[in-house]
C-alpha cells in the first residue's frame, strides 16, 4: 500500500512541477509586458507619434517608422497574398499528384524554416544590387513578401482543403468551368481561413527587423516615402536603433516605440482571431 501511496504522491508532485515550469513562461511574458509598459508609457504621447527621428530623446518620434511600416504593408500584402494564394490554389486544385508537385510542396516547407536573415541576403543580392533598386522601399517590400510567402501558402492550402468537395461538385454539375467553380465557390468559402493566415503572416512581417537591416532600411529618415524607390524606415528599425544607444533615456523611447508596435500587433491578431471565430462553424 505504501508503494501505491508513493506513486500517488509522486503524481501530485509532478503535476505541480509541470505547472511551475509552465508558469515560468507565463511569468516571463508578464514581466516583459510590465517592464515595457513601465518604461515606455511615460514617453508615449501624441508628439511621439507625430515626430520624426531626432538626436535628442525628448524630440524623437516614431512617425517615420509608423508610416514606413504602413507603406511596407501596403506593398507586401497584395504581393505576398496574390502569389501565396495562387500557389495554394495551384497545389490544391490544379496540380497532379506527381513528383513535381511534391517538390514544390517540400520546397515551401523548407523555405518556411530558412532564417529570416538569409532572406535579407537574398534581397541584398537580387533586389538591392542585381535589380539596382538600392536601399529602397520596394527592395524591402519584395524581400519581406518572399519571407512570409511560405506562411501564406500553407495557411491558404489548409483553408482551401477545408472547403467540402460536395459544393465543388455541385458547381461543376451545373456546367460551371473549373475556374468559375474556384472563383465563385471555393475562394469565397476559403476566404476567412486565408485572411486569418495572411493577417498573422503580415503581423510577422511588421515585427521583423533583421532582413530589413540587411536590405538597408535606414534609421535616420526625415521624410515619408513618396515613391517605390524612396528611402524608408520601419517601426522595428527605429526601436532597434534606440535600443542600441548607450544613454538610458533612449531605452524609454525604445519602450514607447515597442508599446506602439505591440498594440498594432495585438490589433492585427485580434482581427485574425475574430475572423476565425466568426466563420469557424460554417460547415
Amino acid at each position: 500500500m505504501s508503494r501505491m501511496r508513493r506513486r500517488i504522491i509522486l503524481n501530485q508532485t509532478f503535476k505541480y512541477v509541470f505547472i511551475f515550469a509552465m508558469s515560468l513562461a507565463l511569468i516571463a511574458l508578464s514581466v516583459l509586458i510590465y517592464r515595457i509598459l513601465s518604461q515606455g508609457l511615460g514617453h508615449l504621447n501624441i508628439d511621439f507619434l507625430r515626430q520624426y527621428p531626432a538626436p535628442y530623446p525628448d524630440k524623437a518620434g516614431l512617425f517615420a517608422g509608423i508610416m514606413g511600416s504602413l507603406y511596407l504593408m501596403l506593398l507586401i500584402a497584395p504581393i505576398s497574398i496574390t502569389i501565396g494564394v495562387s500557389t495554394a490554389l495551384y497545389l490544391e486544385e490544379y496540380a497532379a499528384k506527381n513528383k513535381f508537385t511534391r517538390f514544390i510542396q517540400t520546397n515551401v516547407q523548407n523555405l518556411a524554416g530558412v532564417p529570416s536573415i538569409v532572406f535579407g541576403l537574398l534581397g541584398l543580392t537580387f533586389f538591392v544590387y542585381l535589380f539596382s533598386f538600392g536601399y529602397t522601399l520596394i527592395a524591402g517590400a519584395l524581400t519581406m513578401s518572399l519571407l512570409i510567402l511560405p506562411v501564406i501558402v500553407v495557411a491558404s492550402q489548409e483553408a482551401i482543403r477545408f472547403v467540402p468537395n460536395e459544393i465543388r461538385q455541385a458547381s461543376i454539375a451545373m456546367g460551371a468551368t473549373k475556374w468559375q467553380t474556384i472563383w465563385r465557390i471555393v475562394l469565397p468559402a476559403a476566404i476567412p481561413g486565408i485572411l486569418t493566415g495572411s493577417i498573422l503572416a503580415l503581423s510577422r512581417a511588421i515585427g521583423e527587423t533583421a532582413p530589413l537591416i540587411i536590405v538597408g532600411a535606414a534609421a535616420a529618415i526625415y521624410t515619408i516615402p513618396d515613391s517605390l524607390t524612396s528611402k524608408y524606415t520601419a517601426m522595428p528599425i527605429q526601436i532597434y536603433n534606440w535600443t542600441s544607444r548607450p544613454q538610458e533615456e533612449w531605452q524609454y523611447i525604445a519602450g514607447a516605440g515597442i508599446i506602439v508596435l505591440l498594440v498594432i500587433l495585438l490589433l492585427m491578431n485580434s482581427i485574425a482571431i475574430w475572423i476565425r471565430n466568426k466563420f469557424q462553424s460554417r460547415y
Partner: protein
Amino acid sequence: MSVAMIDEKVEGEIVEKNSSIFKIEDFNLWYGTNQAIYGVNLSIPQNKITAVIGPSGCGKSTLLKTLNRMNDMIPGVRTSGQVMYNNQDIFRNKQMVEELRTQVGMVFQKPNPFPKSIYDNVAYGPRIHGIKKKKVLDEIVENSLKGAAIWDEVKDRLNQNAFSLSGGQQQRVCIARCLAIEPDVILMDEPTSALDPISTSKIEELIKELKNNYTIVIVTHNMQQAARISDKTAFMLNGELVEFTDTDRLFSNPKDKRTEDYITGRFG
C-alpha cells in the same frame, strides 16, 4: 449521300421525341484497373422517371455520373462504348462537357447548398452562364423555387444563408438550383438517403411533379421508393445491368432470378 443522312437524322429526332433521350451502348468503365461497369446497354425514356436500383457498390451511381460526365473528375477513369445524348456521343466532344451539364442537371446524395444566400444559390447557374439582369434573375429564382415546391417556405428570407434551412429544405433548394437553368434531364443520386421520412415524402411528391417537364434518372437503394415513383426501373448487380423494364413489371414479374432474389430481399 448527305441528303440521306439528314433525312435519317430528322427521322431519328422525331422518333427520339417520344422515346429515349439517352442511349447507352455497350458501355464499360474502369477505375484504374478495376472494372466498375460491364457492357451496359440502356435507353432512358424522355419525360419519364427511370430508377436505377441495386446493392451498394453495384455501379449504379457510377452509371448515373457517367451521364453528365462527373466521372471525368476522378483521376484514372477509362471508358469504352457509347453514351448518346440526343444522338450525340457525349464522350466524342471534349468542349461539350459544360454544355452537357447545363442540359443534364444533378441532385446529390447529401444536400450540398453553397455557403451563400438562398437567392444566390438558385441564381448561381444562370449567373455562371452569363445571365446578369436582376429582373430576369428574380423571375428565374422565383419560378425555380416554386418549381421545387419551396417558394412559400423561403420567399421571405431569400437573403438568408442556405445553411439556415433544414436538411429537407436544403435539398429542395438544391433541386431549385438545378431547375434554374432548365435542364432537360435531372440526375438524382439517392436524393433522400440523408433525409427524414417526412422530408423524403415531400421530395418524392416533387419528383413525380417534375416528370411533366423533365426526364428524371434516380439512383436509389430504397426499392419501395423506386416502386412508388418510377416508370421504369433498371436493376444492376456487380457492374452489370441485369434487367430493365417497366417498374410494375420488374417488381411483379421479374424475368431474371437475380432480380427476383434482390427484390424479395434474399440478398443485398
